[in-house]
């Protein structure tokens, strides 16, 4: 009897299959891939958003809203789209069924993480491209710094979503918890008021939240430098804590 692990192609087959299924969810695709850009375009159509403001350090509101829309894409992917899928896979015995094959059910979770990360990053790319071409928003001045911040923010967003799924027993609960966490994260990501436009005290508090820190890191990269150690440190810490919680609390059935 062969005792070699499952063929490496199995993990790829799981990813390929999950990608097909992902493409069959028009609502999730819209919210993750399209809605952040729609948000940006709607805001960009408001004339006052395109006016230089002394209060924003000589920038326009729309300049600040490009990173906000990027974070909005991460929130949609990690918090709104992913938790119900994972919780549903658990609730409907799909993970359990895979446990009875040579492939571990972790392959399914990994595939979901990868797909939601890729979708969010593509959405971020679309937001950036539309911001640049439609509203003349400058590309991030420090590209490596921007990418580091973006990758860390994506990891943090997925870790938050995984935690939501881990603490929720059912798919319904995952949707409810995800939505409850959704509004505070939208606020801290600066969807209503960009973090950089918040009053100082509030801004300093918000910058210790996962998305507040991400907003600061993206802003620092946009202005031409490496994101500072505080913002990056806060993001790493949140990601580690959330991922640890998710791993500890997650039940396979």
């Amino acid at each position: 009897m062969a005792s070699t692990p499952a063929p490496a192609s199995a993990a790829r087959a799981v990813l390929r299959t999950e990608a097909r299924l992902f493409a069959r969810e028009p609502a999730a695709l819209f919210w993750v891939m399209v809605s952040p850009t729609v948000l940006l375009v709607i805001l960009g159509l408001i004339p006052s958003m395109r006016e230089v403001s002394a209060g924003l350090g000589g920038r326009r509101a729309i300049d600040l809203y490009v990173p906000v829309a990027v974070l909005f894409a991460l929130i949609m992917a990690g918090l709104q789209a992913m938790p119900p899928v994972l919780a549903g896979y658990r609730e409907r015995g799909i993970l359990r069924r895979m446990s009875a094959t040579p492939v571990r059910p972790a392959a399914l979770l990994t595939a979901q993480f990868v797909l939601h990360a890729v979708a969010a990053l593509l959405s971020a790319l679309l937001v950036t491209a539309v911001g640049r071409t439609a509203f003349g928003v400058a590309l991030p001045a420090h590209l490596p710094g921007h990418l580091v911040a973006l990758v860390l923010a994506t990891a943090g967003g997925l870790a938050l979503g995984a935690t939501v799924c881990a603490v929720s027993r059912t798919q319904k609960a995952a949707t409810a918890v995800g939505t409850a966490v959704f509004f505070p994260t939208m606020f801290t990501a600066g969807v209503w008021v960009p973090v950089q436009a918040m009053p100082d005290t509030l801004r300093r508090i918000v910058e210790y939240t996962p998305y507040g820190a991400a907003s600061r890191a993206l802003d620092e990269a946009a202005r031409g430098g490496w994101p500072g150690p505080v913002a990056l440190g806060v993001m790493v810490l949140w990601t580690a804590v959330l991922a640890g919680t998710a791993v500890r609390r997650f039940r396979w059935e």
Partner: protein
Amino acid sequence: MIEVRDLRKAYGERKAVDGVSFSVEEGEIFGILGPNGAGKTTTVECVAGLRVPDAGRVRVAGLDPVADHDRVTRVLGVQLQRSELQAKLTVREALELYATFYERPADRRALAGRLGLDAHLDARFGTLSGGQKQRLLIALALVGDPRAVVLDELTTGLDPRARRDTWDLVESIRANGVTVLLVTHVMEEAQRLCDRIAVIDGGRVTALDTPAGLIGRTATARVISFAADSPLDPADLAALPGAAEVTGRDGRTVVTGTDATVDAFVSLLARRAVTARGLRITDATLDDAYLDLTS
């Protein structure tokens, strides 16, 4: 092929399985029969390595399903209760995906044909009927070309025709040399398919025998009935050796008992020189045996 010795598993205070033992021979269809909550599913989940037993020994083809989980998944296919697939996954995609999990998968096309799935290859799981879903899940249990399969509550929720078709399928699985461990609470299914049956109740094996053996060991294996106006005294009937019960229903007198009861009854008729009109002597069903064994 499958060996279970003194298996124990508790969930908190509740002992789901409390000392279950049985062994399934190669090529056998072995049934686990019992009421809901008897510990059937927990038992087979331990066999499949999905749960870690508290105590006892489980072996599948000589392998420990927990320590050797990976190798066990290659010899044992499973169709689990309350286990679904992604709603938008098509039949073809499911078969292709699960085939990639095994080094030497079965021929997917032949399998789909055998299970009557060829006409539904492009249908999504969520749109399949109950019987089609069940057939696909059986196909996935077989796609790794296993030596044994666990089939848990195979026909629950199926209409009578789909149920019959599924039974034929189980027989064809065995005809292909695959050992079958069948969990069920449907008597007719167990009686029709199983070579041997372990009756489980309250986490324990209350009987283990062939279907005929289980029926034969009940106190009411034979049922004698005849028209109620036959000239026979109920007191004489109740006094027959092995007679369990004498009742009247639908204008007929019904005596339940054993083979000895039947012999003595025939002698009684001869001695009295009377006729029992409309006489019928029937075997009890597995239903009767089951109720007797799980009461």
